[in-house]
């Protein structure tokens, strides 16, 4: 299966901002993808390319937020995927679980990449997600 994808975070050339606390919330350049109201049982996928990383590694997250988006009252959203922490080249894949049995009244709508790493280190990576099948 090939899925259509969009890029949530491309830090291949720019390196990353230190965000060991807050999972990237303080990064003003972070981009949020609006996929509209997402019904339950729509399968999404996430693909991570870790092109280089420092000794202490990096952990990448795919986060989602409700229809109100990333606001000061809800700056973090929910972790849908927590990729395995790595300190080497790697690619990882995840199926995003969002089935009707676990659905809440608020549809997932806004998606973004977040990360945890040691300060002053540089990790180059790209996180993409599918647009649904």
């Amino acid at each position, binding site marked *: *299966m090939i899925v*259509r994808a969009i*890029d949530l*975070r491309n830090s291949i050339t720019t390196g990353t901002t230190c965000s060991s606390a807050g999972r990237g919330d303080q990064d003003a350049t972070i981009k949020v*993808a609006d*996929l509209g109201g997402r019904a339950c049982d729509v399968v999404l996928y996430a693909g991570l390319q870790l092109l280089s990383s420092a000794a202490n590694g990096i952990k990448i997250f795919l986060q989602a937020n409700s229809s109100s988006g990333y606001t000061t009252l809800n700056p973090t959203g929910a972790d849908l995927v927590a990729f395995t922490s790595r300190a080497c080249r790697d690619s990882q894949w995840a199926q995003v679980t969002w089935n009707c049995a676990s659905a809440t009244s608020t549809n997932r709508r806004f998606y973004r990449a977040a990360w945890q790493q040691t300060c002053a280190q540089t990790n180059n990576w790209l996180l993409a997600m599918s647009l649904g099948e």
Partner: protein
Amino acid sequence: MAIVFTNATVLLAGYNLTAQANRVALEYSAEALDNTVFGSATRTKTGGLKVARATVAGFWSGGVTGIEGPLHDNLALDDEVLIVFPEAIAEGATSTGSGYMFKTTQTRYRVGGAVGDLFPFEVDAEGRGVQS
């Protein structure tokens, strides 16, 4: 609107092949199963299993920073992620900068050319099917 295919990004198994690649092809196909029965005037078909594969080609490079090492060593490894963006990447955008991705097994690595050529490489990858 058409795009001029000059700014693709190709990522495979944690390696950015963009600077070495000059050709990429994704093929997503489905089998057409013959369900023709007696009394039919024409053959009829129904959709079957899907197949995904990709080919990336470009200019070979060796050494520690070259592409030879990973492409040679990753042959037959499962669950490599291939991501292709046909045009410039736009973070978070759903209208531009979109591309394709799938989980693959690298099935072929080929090098070699004629005298005077820029030494080429070509790598094939096939979809792993179930994507969980």
